[in-house]
């Protein structure tokens, strides 16, 4: 198997493929040994990769010329080509079997344990993989207090972004006495580019139902509600099927597993407002009120849905619970690091080769995620920044790449964990435009209740516009920073308090880019249309007139076979001329 990932292909893996095939053919082995290309192994740093089956031999940094050695030695004589084997950097020994490589232990699937393995519409497949066993254990062998102790001991923190210890939250809800309590699952996933919760609900809905029932038992609630966006139709369909099946099997409803405990789950649909991911706004939305947050306290654990004690957790938090009870809290607490235990699911997106859904133990570094699991930056471009935490998070740079991913380290670096969106940017991304993109989002999603968020973010957005148009002054930059700080301190809820984060973190890490926009009216990444000019290169232009003919506004003039010129006052910067030019004679300045 020859890696056909972008990184390896750039290092001539396709020639390796051809050479191997030829070498085999010349020895009449083409029918006995097959050569196939694969998707990215994710080990691009040591590429190109060639793996041989069935012995799992893993060759790294293979060159086209190595093909004959691999065939001669490995295939014919059955001896491993020692010099191409992966060398363990710590032990300085070679590793022949890929299963022994530390690299393969980068990802660990706990929340995603069933996602992509079972048929989500068939409860039997879930049960065959330990499904509902944690519930049985909790209901029949543990007291509610025992369950809470286990969750506390696992030290799991809320996966929705806040990172509040889930065990404590359960404890608060359990402590409050009431005739009726509720368990709510927050499935209002709203960060741009994030699809962790959707994937869990679509791939393993029963794990969430099971965990909600366990939570109900330990907190004394008998009703569960899942608040989910109406724009997730497939997740809703599969949840409904799962709820019906669980009821049919007696795993939801009255007297679950003969324990005398009753619990049932219903769905509540949201119209897709970002602020409804905030738990008080979410509860108001479920009550049929406007989806606006209210000041805490009172916390939902005291007075939540319909004024009753309510425990709200995120989808991913719930998905971890059955595994914690089945494998033990200590096992879970042993994964990750001291203050952030377990794993985190990320939706890896942006300018990265292996866009996808990943789950890594806490403490994995950004570098490992981006360059090893993610396969590095697209088209061999240079890494510039990684955005975590969605519109509330920040951008981290090259110098942060070795930061371990956990709640506290990301916060210390100026970003946050968030719910798990991770967007990678390359050298062509303008950081001012990136913060403008996030502000676009928060301005749109602000519920309008408090002035700092409603008015302040709008002002921030205007300032960013001014900067990208090259009309801002140094004073504007100062106002931008001050106002960001004020909004952070004074906004009512999490949305407003975190909305200036993308600006602050990019100002901290990419200050020179802001300055370039203001002082020199230049966009270093060449993204801000108002700040760039298309220029014709005198040396390369042959006067073919192709650019002049394609220009929609007639801004290009010049005689045949003569140097052409662009009138920058007419140019609308559409880029059509540059695309058309066959002589690389048009560039952006």
């Amino acid at each position, binding site marked *: 198997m020859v890696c056909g990932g972008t990184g390896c292909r750039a290092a001539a893996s396709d020639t390796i493929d051809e050479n191997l095939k030829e070498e085999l053919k010349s020895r009449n082995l083409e029918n006995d040994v097959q050569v196939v290309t694969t998707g990215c192994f994710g080990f691009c740093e040591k590429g190109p990769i060639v793996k041989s089956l069935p012995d799992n031999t893993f060759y790294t940094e293979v060159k086209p010329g190595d093909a004959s050695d691999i065939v001669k030695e490995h295939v014919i004589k059955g001896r491993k080509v020692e010099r191409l084997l992966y060398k363990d950097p710590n032990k300085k020994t070679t590793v022949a079997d890929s299963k022994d490589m530390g690299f393969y232990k980068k990802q660990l699937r706990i929340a995603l344990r069933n996602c*992509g393995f079972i048929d989500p519409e068939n409860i039997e497949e879930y049960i*065959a993989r330990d499904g509902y066993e944690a519930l049985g254990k909790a209901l029949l062998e543990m007291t509610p207090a025992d369950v809470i102790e286990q969750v506390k001991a696992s030290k799991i923190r809320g996966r929705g972004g806040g990172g509040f210890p889930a065990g404590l939250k359960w404890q608060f809800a359990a402590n409050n006495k009431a005739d009726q309590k509720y368990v709510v699952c927050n499935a209002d996933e709203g960060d741009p580019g994030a699809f962790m919760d959707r*994937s869990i609900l679509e791939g393993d809905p029963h794990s969430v139902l099971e965990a909600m029932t366990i939570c109900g038992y330990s907190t004394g609630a008998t009703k569960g509600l899942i608040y989910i966006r109406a724009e997730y139709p497939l997740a809703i369909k599969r949840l409904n099927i799962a709820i019906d099946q669980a009821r049919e099997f007696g795993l939801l409803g009255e007297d679950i597993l003969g324990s005398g405990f009753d619990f049932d789950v219903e769905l509540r649909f949201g119209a897709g407002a970002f602020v409804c991911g905030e738990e008080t706004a979410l509860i108001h939305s479920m009550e049929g009120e406007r989806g606006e947050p209210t000041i805490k306290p009172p916390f939902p654990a005291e007075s939540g849905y319909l004024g009753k004690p309510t425990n709200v957790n995120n989808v991913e938090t719930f998905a971890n619970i059955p595994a914690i009870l089945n494998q033990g809290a200590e096992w879970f607490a042993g994964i990750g690091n001291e203050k952030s235990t377990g794993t985190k699911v990320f939706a890896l997106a942006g300018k990265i080769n292996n866009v996808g859904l*990943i789950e890594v133990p806490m403490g994995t570094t950004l570098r490992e995620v981006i360059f090893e699991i993610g396969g590095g930056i697209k088209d061999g471009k240079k890494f510039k920044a990684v955005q975590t935490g969605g519109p509330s998070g920040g951008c981290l740079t090259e110098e942060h790449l070795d930061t371990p991913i956990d709640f506290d380290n990301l916060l210390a670096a100026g970003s946050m964990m968030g719910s798990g969106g991770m967007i990678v940017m390359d050298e062509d991304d303008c950081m001012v435009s990136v913060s403008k993109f996030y502000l676009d989002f928060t301005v749109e999603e602000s519920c309008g209740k408090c002035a700092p968020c409603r008015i302040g973010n709008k002002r921030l957005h205007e300032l960013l516009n001014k900067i990208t148009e090259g009309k801002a002054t140094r004073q504007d930059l100062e106002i931008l920073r001050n106002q960001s700080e004020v909004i952070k301190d004074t906004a009512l809820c999490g949305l407003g308090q975190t909305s200036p984060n993308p600006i602050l973190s990019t100002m901290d890490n990419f200050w020179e880019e802001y300055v370039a926009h203001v002082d020199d009216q230049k966009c270093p990444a060449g993204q801000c249309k108002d700040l760039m000019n298309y220029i014709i290169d005198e040396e390369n232009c042959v006067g073919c007139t192709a650019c002049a003919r394609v220009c929609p506004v007639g801004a290009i003039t010049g005689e045949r076979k003569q140097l052409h010129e662009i009138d920058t006052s007419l140019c609308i910067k559409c880029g059509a001329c540059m695309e058309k030019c066959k002589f690389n004679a048009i560039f952006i300045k």
Partner: protein
Amino acid sequence: MSKIKSLAELKKMKSELRNKVTLREKGDHPESLVQVRVGMATSGIASGAKEVYNYLADELEKRNIDAVVTQTGDMGYSYAEPTIEVTLPGKEPIVFGWVDTRKADEIIEKYIRNEELVDGIIPQNYETIDDRK
């Protein structure tokens, strides 16, 4: 289906279901089933997983191959959707990416019929809970 009334009943059901699955996956009789899973979360479906699912189900039957095709959730390889996992009797499962109906045809003819590998294998790069136990 009658309700499950105790933990013991649940456990019994689990081991029965497991045996059923194990028989299906590890059976060494030539007559045992080929198992195909199609990743059908929103992203998979958007890339055409439904067509691939229907194609595989129809074609495997037409070509008299004893197989069961099921849907599953997101396997995580968004860059290579649609993705399918094929488990031949007694073999480790293999995931193929970028599967359209043409690729599916190639997989049936080459891999499922003759155990010949085809391009587009996605290497597994994660551990599961069971690996860590």
